[in-house]
């Protein structure tokens, strides 16, 4: 390029720059202006200034070193572009600019200077900042007012909630609700119905809504919200809803509170519990509320407009009121109150319409108009009769307590363990015989403790403080004058939240007299000759004496507190518990276990026969039962001996009776069975002597023969019987099988059995063998079997059944027949007698059963019969 050309080109360039619509400046390597656009001049307000040839830094002295450094970098080939930056001008104003600074080249690689392209964006920048500020303010407002925005896209059913809306619903910010779930947050019932209705209407008709509805948040909180919404319509169709949502709970609650307060105020004025009475400037009552009616028994109609408060107040109280206020303010009572804006509160006695007096708490204040003149008074009164009564009751009770303490010799005390302050009731001072003015500490008390009890008391108190419980304590005190008293201490321990002992509260009773009584009782108990055991209602042993220790082998310490059952053998204990309960429901002195043998059990488990009498004992510990227990071992032994002797005697007597009976039998036999034939012989002999012919003598002789034969049989039987009696039967006992005996008997009687066709059955399976005298047994079988055949019924084939077995531990033999039977009512008493016959049978001699009985009895057995006439007879032999 020629120099001209380049000059021309530079000229063109300059023109181009000068006329460019944006702010452009061309600078040489020394940062001097070569050319600037018109816009540059206006942007930087340099109209009329000669700047070409001037240094950029002279024109803008405010340019700092950092920019200068950047320019140097550009002069070395760098390009510096900035979108926006504040440019603090020398006059202090801030200009927001953007720039593009790059080098221009003279030739390849040779930099001629810099091209600066800038723009003033200050107005845009300011608008932007304004908007940001507006949004910020709006956000802040929203936050404070708790307003949020929401949108619903009806085509996707998606719902957008702003942060605040989420916060109000108490859901996380990323919560994604649906239209339905959103609606379901509204409280069921009126609120939900309302929101559903207005939302539907907005969708259908485009009607915007603004409603206050109650919401239940995700966390279950119930609050009032304001929901504002309207529809978004495209082509007449609703495509979405949007609106704002506000938490108005506070306002709503405040509104409600105000309305409540109003209602309460109304309630107070109308209530029964507070009487509100106002008077006008003349002192005449102009308001008399429901409470006043209720309190005083007058109706408002009777009072308002006509009466003054003097109808229900006592004049002397009014007078006192006036004097009090006069003293306070030095002038008319009401004026004083009014000027000081004060009111008077005191108790008054009101008189009801029916004349009864009540105590009321009254607040009396003057009513002033705007000018401060008194135009009336306001009285607010409430009935405190009940409170007053309670107060009086409390006072009275306190008096009663004091009295009771004096009477029962009890005092109460408090010991603050932190401050070591001790307080006593006045009666306690009396018990200790100390002046009430005495200052008290624990040591005061301790100084009175009997020297011998000091250690025990110290240990007890230490235990109580450590264990936080105070078992009842009985100890002696020694007064200043030397008197010794017994006191019983009961206490509660008070601790703070940390469990530290703060205070002990309790009572102290002078039990000296009781103690003496106890000692007396104890002495009485110990002197009793019987073992005494005192038991409480729960069956726990309360007290025992030395005798009881001796009887049962336990020490008192081992037994006290134990159940009484420890002294009762287990086989009785179950019944004993219920007997004991019975006794406590109907306590009276009685012998225990009437008619039964009682036993106690001692420590070694030995049972002791005892006799117990019980008596109820009413004590302060409740109903106790004292049992006097007597060891009756020796009596018992003696009794057993007597019983034994009696039993022996009975056996002996039985034997004697038996012997007697046998003797009587013999007596009978000799007096009858022997005398009869002999008297017959005598008679026959008499006839024989006077007989006149041989024929007669022969006849008489035949009679003689009969009598002699009879006499011989009788004598034989007697001999037999005597033999049975005298034989030592025990010697000839042998083990006998029964069945062969029966067979032998049947052989002997075979003729008769065959003739009668008798059926004989036997069952010896239960007792096939028997230890007995063989001859007797054979005789018994023969006699009973032949009897059964002899006295058979003519109407039946004889059937005889013989069984043997064991019944009640005794062997028995039984013969049953179906024969004629015997009328036992008539003949029972002589069934087994000698020569007794009961049938008109030619062979009946009355010997068989007699001998059988003899034999059975000789071996210690017995025989008896059961019979029914024409049915049969059974003989039972107990062997």
């Amino acid at each position, binding site marked *: 390029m020629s120099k001209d050309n380049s000059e021309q080109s530079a000229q063109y360039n300059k023109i181009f720059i000068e006329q460019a619509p944006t702010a452009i400046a061309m600078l040489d390597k020394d940062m001097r202006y070569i050319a600037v656009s018109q816009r540059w001049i206006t942007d930087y307000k340099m109209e009329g200034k000669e700047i070409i040839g001037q240094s950029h830094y002279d024109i803008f002295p405010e340019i700092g070193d950092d920019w200068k450094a950047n320019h140097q970098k550009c002069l070395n080939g760098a390009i510096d572009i900035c979108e926006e930056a504040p440019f603090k001008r020398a006059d202090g104003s801030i200009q927001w600019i953007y720039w593009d600074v790059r080098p221009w080249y003279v030739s390849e690689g040779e930099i001629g200077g810099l091209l600066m392209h800038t723009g003033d964006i200050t107005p845009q920048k300011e608008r932007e900042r304004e908007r940001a500020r507006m949004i910020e303010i709006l956000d802040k407002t929203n936050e404070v007012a708790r307003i949020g925005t929401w949108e619903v896209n009806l085509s996707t059913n998606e719902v957008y909630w702003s942060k605040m809306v989420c916060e109000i619903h108490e859901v996380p910010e990323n919560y994604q609700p649906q239209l339905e779930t959103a609606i379901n947050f509204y409280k069921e019932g009126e609120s939900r119905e309302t929101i559903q209705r207005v939302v539907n209407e907005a969708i259908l008709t485009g009607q915007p809504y603004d409603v206050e509805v109650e919401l239940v948040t995700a966390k279950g909180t119930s609050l009032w919200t304001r929901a504002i919404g309207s529809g978004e319509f495209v082509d007449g169709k609703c495509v979405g809803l949007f609106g704002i949502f506000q938490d108005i709970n506070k306002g709503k609650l405040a509104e409600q509170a105000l309305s409540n307060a109003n209602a309460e105020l109304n309630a107070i004025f109308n209530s029964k519990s507070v009487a509100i009475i106002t008077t006008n400037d003349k002192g005449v009552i102009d308001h008399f509320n429901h409470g006043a009616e209720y309190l005083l028994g007058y109706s408002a109609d009777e009072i308002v407009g006509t009466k003054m408060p003097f109808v229900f107040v006592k004049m002397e109280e009014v007078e006192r009121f006036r004097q009090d206020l006069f003293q306070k303010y030095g002038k008319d009572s009401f004026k004083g109150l009014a000027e000081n804006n004060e009111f008077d509160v005191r108790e008054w006695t009101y008189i009801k319409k029916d004349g009864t007096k009540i105590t009321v708490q009254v607040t009396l204040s003057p009513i002033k108009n705007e000018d401060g003149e008194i135009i009336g008074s306001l009285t607010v009164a409430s009935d405190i009769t009940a409170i007053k009564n309670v107060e009086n009751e409390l006072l009275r009770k306190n008096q009663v307590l004091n009295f009771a303490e004096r009477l029962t010799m009890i005092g109460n005390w408090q010991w603050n363990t932190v401050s070591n302050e001790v307080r006593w009731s006045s009666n306690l001072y009396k018990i200790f015989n100390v002046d009430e003015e005495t200052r008290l500490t624990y040591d005061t008390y301790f100084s009175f403790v009997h020297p011998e009890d000091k250690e025990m008391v110290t240990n007890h108190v230490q235990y109580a403080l450590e264990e936080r419980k105070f078992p009842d304590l009985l100890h002696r005190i020694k007064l200043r004058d030397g008197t010794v008293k017994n006191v019983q201490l009961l206490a509660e321990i008070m601790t703070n939240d940390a469990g530290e002992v703060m205070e002990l509260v309790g009572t102290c009773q002078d039990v000296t007299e009781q103690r003496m009584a106890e000692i007396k009782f104890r002495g009485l108990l110990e002197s009793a000759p019987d073992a005494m055991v005192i038991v409480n209602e729960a069956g726990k042993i309360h007290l025992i004496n030395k005798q009881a220790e001796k009887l049962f082998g336990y020490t008192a310490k081992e037994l006290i507190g134990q159940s009484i059952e420890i002294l009762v053998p287990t086989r009785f204990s179950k019944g004993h518990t219920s007997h004991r309960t019975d006794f406590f429901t109907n306590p009276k002195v009685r012998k225990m276990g009437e008619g039964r043998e009682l036993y106690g059990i001692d420590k070694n488990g030995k049972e002791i026969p005892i006799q117990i009498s019980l008596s109820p004992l009413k004590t302060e510990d409740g109903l106790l039962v004292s049992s006097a227990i007597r060891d009756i071992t020796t009596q018992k032994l003696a009794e057993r001996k007597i019983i034994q002797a009696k039993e022996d005697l009975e056996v002996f007597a039985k034997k004697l009776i038996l012997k007697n009976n046998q003797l009587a039998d013999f*007596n*009978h036999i000799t*007096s*009858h069975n022997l*005398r*009869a*034939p002999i*008297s*017959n012989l*005598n*008679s*026959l002999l*008499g*006839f024989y002597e*006077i007989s006149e012919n041989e024929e007669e003598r022969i006849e008489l002789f035949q*009679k003689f023969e*009969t*009598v002699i034969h009879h006499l011989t049989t009788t004598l034989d039987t007697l001999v037999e019987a005597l033999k049975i009696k005298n034989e030592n039967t025990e010697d000839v006992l042998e083990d006998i099988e029964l069945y062969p005996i029966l067979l032998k008997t049947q052989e002997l009687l075979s003729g008769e059995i065959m003739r009668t066709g008798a059926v004989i059955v036997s069952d010896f399976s239960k007792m096939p063998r028997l230890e007995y005298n063989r001859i007797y047994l054979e005789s018994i079988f023969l006699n009973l079997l032949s009897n059964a055949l002899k006295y058979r019924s003519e109407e039946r084939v004889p059937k005889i059944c013989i069984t043997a077995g064991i019944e009640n531990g005794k062997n028995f033999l039984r013969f049953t027949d179906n024969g004629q039977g015997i009328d036992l009512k*008539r003949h029972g008493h002589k069934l087994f007698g000698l*020569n*007794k*016959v*009961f*049938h*008109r049978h030619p062979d*009946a001699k009355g010997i068989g059963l007699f001998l059988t009985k003899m034999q059975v009895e000789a071996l210690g057995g017995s025989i008896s019969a059961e019979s029914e006439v024409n049915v049969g007879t059974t003989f039972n032999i107990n062997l």
Partner: protein
Amino acid sequence: MSNSLNVCIVDDDDIYQFTMVKTLKSLRLAENIMTFSDGEEALDFMLDNLHNDKELPDVIFLDIDMPIMDGFQFMEEYVKLKPSLGKKITIYMVSSSVDPVDIERAKKISEIADYMVKPITHNQLRNIVEELGLSGDR
């Protein structure tokens, strides 16, 4: 001597019956003599002849020990029967027993005139019959 007396002997002892009958006859104390071996037989006879005074005995010699119905049992039945009888009957209890129990028991029964121990002597019999005969005459 009265021959109209009806004498009744109740005894199971044949020999005694024989000697009694023989004695009464030999002494001619009675012609009409009835004998029964036990109380029941005698009672049956009386029941059959309740109103037949001719047949009913005037005197009964009653043994104690008899089979079927003994003397005391007979007396029990007789006491029941007595009100329906039209005739006065004198009863003697006769026994070989000297047992005081028997004697006491017999004396307690008012219907029994006397208790007699066997053997009965001729004189005793005579006296009894005569006494009855005297009262019968009146």
